[in-house]
């Protein structure tokens, strides 16, 4: 079970594990991460599951689809390391992934 560390905007961390194939959004929701709102339930339609990928991990992720890239342009404070957690699938290679959470999604 790959392990993910979520780093909140205030620096506090939450560790969580999930199953291979599960979306990172669903791991975050199960871990009770409040700022992952995921209002569209993972359809890449709302942009409220946004996070920043820790430098070093970004290249190890499959690149975003057009649709994810378009949604990211519209989140608060988009950065080159922005991703939507509902579009990231857990794999064994992602064991140890570190994600930084925004302070808010609106």
């Amino acid at each position, binding site marked *: 079970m790959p392990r993910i560390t979520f780093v909140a905007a205030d620096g506090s961390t939450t560790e969580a594990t999930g199953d291979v194939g599960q979306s990172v959004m669903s791991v975050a929701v199960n871990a009770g991460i*409040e700022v992952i709102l*995921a209002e569209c*339930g993972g359809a890449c339609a709302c942009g409220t599951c946004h996070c920043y990928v820790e430098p070093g991990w970004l290249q190890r992720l499959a690149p975003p689809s057009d649709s994810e890239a378009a949604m990211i342009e519209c989140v608060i404070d988009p950065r080159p390391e922005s991703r939507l957690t509902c579009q990231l699938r857990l794999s064994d290679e992602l064991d140890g992934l570190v994600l930084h959470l925004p302070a808010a999604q609106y």
Partner: protein
Amino acid sequence: MAMHVAIVGSGQAGLQVALSLRELGHAGGVTLVGNEAHLPYHRPPMSKRGLAEPIGADELAIRTRDFIAQRTIALRLGVEVAGIDRQAQRLRLGEGERLDYDRLVLATGSVPRRLQLAGAHLPNVVSLKDYADLVRLRGLLAETRRAVLIGGGFVGLELAGSLTRAGVAVTVLEAAPRLLARAASADLSAYLETAHRARGVDLRCGVSIASIAGEARATAVLLSSGEALPADLVIVGVGADANDQLARSAGLATDRGILVDAAGRTSDPAIFAAGDCTRFDHPLYGPALRLESVNNALEQARAVAAGIAGQPAPDATIPWFWSDQFDLKIQLAGIASPLDRIETVHGEGDFVRHFVRDGVLRAVEAVNAPRAFMQARRRMAGEMASLNHMKEPA
């Protein structure tokens, strides 16, 4: 004053009212009563991924049980609210139990319309509204080679995609002359009709259905023309009505939906309502508007929480909606009207239309054009903000 807020309906809107109340610092009790046994869950994935993937109710849950409990929200799941005593500010629950409230929120959603047709009661004639329906539908799928979908709405068209991909031969029957006649422009309807046919759906508009044939199970759908369409599964998606029955019995103002103001207040100052069960006035899209969307449920829920917490109602926003059908990612914002001038945006995705009136972008419809859609949405949000600003007293 520590007020007790009771919320009826543990869906998208009901849960969001509870969570927003806590975010706003509401100190009194919050009780969320819902007649479904599951934690509040996302409905949209059911018609999109729900047939191909065996998603469980827990995976659809919007928040975990712990998350909700940590915010001291009392969950009463599997409990039906039978009536409201407004004088005593008290709910009547099933089994004769009572629940007092200082503020009440109705978030009872919508009820699928039933077909008044012979055979509509047969066991392989289903609708998709609740998780229980999804379980029933999945159970029927194993024996299904041919499905007839009655009604060409968004959920029906999503299911047409999911079923076709599962190897089922799909026929969609729409009574109106075109698909999505109330929810989409004629251009988008025409685009989707072509797209569904190209992907193997036998799509027929303007048809009238005589009955569903079969003894123990439905075996065919009979058209008024005399044609019989064989089916192992019949899915009915002919729209839904606001579930305003509790409100009506309690004598609140309703008109095919609970009438609410911008703060979600009903005609009783102690009672609010949010989501699919309401009707409200929108400054751009007209009086007595009723929407069935996640976005609207959440916006109204936040407005209700603000109203209960004594804060000003948030400004009106642009409604938006999405639908995934086959490989088609459909996105809508605003509401197109025949009074608008239509502008076709070329070179962006598969389909983009702007709906403009008096120089104002009032709606956008897009298929596989996420960037153009988001640009239009942002422009509309900006225009809406200046409209809200103009209305503010100097």
